[in-house]
């Protein structure tokens, strides 16, 4: 019944999806946290940059961002991110685009977490003589992260599914394979079901595990 799968590297395609997800998740967590730090910081220029970045980037469709990385940065401006191999270049640009896009949402999730930390926590930290960066990294962010595991899980699940947009610039991940399988085999429903199931296998455990983690690390007040 599943003969239409033979001859296709299904696991290989999903492995690319997983790689895109993990690398983009790590990157957008870092960049998103920095953006959140800028948005709550005392320097007006950085606050302005953070606000502008988030409001511009989260309102542009991901497809446009990913296409821009490939067509704009790579083909027009000649940036190749340190590789000559076409597949590697596109993979890297897909990760770059996903990080740029997802970090806007990570930033806002973290910022809402920062708002859950009582202002007295930061005041006590400042009163001890900690610098702004120390207050943020030692006292505020550790508590903010614990309160936004849930929202960040949503962002991660959305990111996992958003990696399919990388197919638009020829990255051989799951959706890319699905498209060519649908063209070659007369099994539209079965193929769609297999890929839908594949994504559920990735995202459902993510949600369950992080839901448990979120409860475990919650700050008791």
């Amino acid at each position, binding site marked *: 019944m599943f003969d239409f799968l033979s001859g296709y590297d299904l696991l290989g395609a999903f492995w690319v999806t997983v790689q895109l997800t993990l690398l983009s998740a790590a990157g957008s967590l870092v960049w998103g946290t920095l953006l959140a730090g800028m948005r709550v910081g005392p320097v007006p220029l950085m606050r302005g940059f953070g606000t502008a970045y988030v409001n511009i980037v989260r309102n542009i469709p991901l497809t446009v961002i990913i296409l821009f990385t490939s067509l704009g940065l790579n083909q027009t401006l000649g940036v190749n991110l340190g590789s000559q191999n076409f597949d590697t270049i596109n993979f890297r640009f897909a990760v770059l685009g996903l990080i740029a896009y997802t970090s806007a949402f990570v930033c806002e999730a973290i910022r809402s977490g920062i708002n859950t930390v009582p202002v007295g926590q930061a*005041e*006590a930290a400042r009163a001890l003589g900690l610098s702004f960066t120390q207050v943020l990294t030692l006292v505020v962010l550790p*508590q903010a992260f614990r309160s936004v595991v849930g929202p960040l899980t949503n962002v991660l699940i959305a990111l996992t599914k958003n990696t399919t947009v990388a197919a638009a610039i020829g990255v051989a991940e799951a959706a890319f394979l699905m498209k060519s399988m649908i063209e070659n085999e007369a099994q539209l429903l079965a193929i769609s079901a297999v890929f839908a199931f594949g994504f559920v296998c990735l995202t459902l455990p993510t949600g369950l595990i992080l839901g448990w983690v979120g409860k475990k690390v919650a700050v008791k007040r």
Partner: protein
Amino acid sequence: MTEVSMAKEDVASTGDLVVLKSVNKHFGALHVLQDIDLTIARGEVVVVIGPSGSGKSTLCRTINRLETIDSGEISIDGRPLPHEGKELARLRADVGMVFQSFNLFAHKTVLENVTLGQVKVRRKDRKQAEERARTLLDRVGVGAQADKYPAQLSGGQQQRVAIARALAMEPKVMLFDEPTSALDPEMINEVLEVMQQLARDGMTMIVVTHEMGFARSAANRVVFMADGRIIEQATPDQFFSNPRSDRAKDFLSKILHH
């Protein structure tokens, strides 16, 4: 305790520690601090009292610049209060602060709360910092709770940890912003006792409080504030037995007779 008793020795030698000169502050249309002049000598314990909304908490918070001021001058140990940045952080490290709502770091254990500033601001070795933290926690009577999280402690215990956290920085002056106002009645005394001990050891203290008993027994001076002004300053004996201003008489008549 040695550092504290040493601090007492320079009381006479170096004079004024905290000086506020014609300090003004507005919250929007509200003029919360109006031409405040206040000088606190080294080793002195000053209790600030007054009706709520009189600006006493705000006054306390301007001294380490948790609240900015609109005009006037504040200096600590002869140095004017710096604007934001490293300088200000350095000065804050010398000014201990205890809050009404304790504000212990909720994600850190009691011991970590007391070592954080020593390690990150004073750049002390972690072992030394922990040793000092344990000594201080013993001194305020919560040594046995060192490995618990703040939420597992009673309010009185949390506030004593907060005092230990401030003392760990070896501050020149301690600010207490209504330290017992959020406590259940039976826990107020355990905190006041720690503060009284601190006062006896010669710490310079500015205490905003509604605890008249503490003001009587521990203060060198009582500052009475109303409507953003300092109305009256006197020794506790003078103030409680023979207040000069009508505002103070009115205030005392409302709180002392029940």
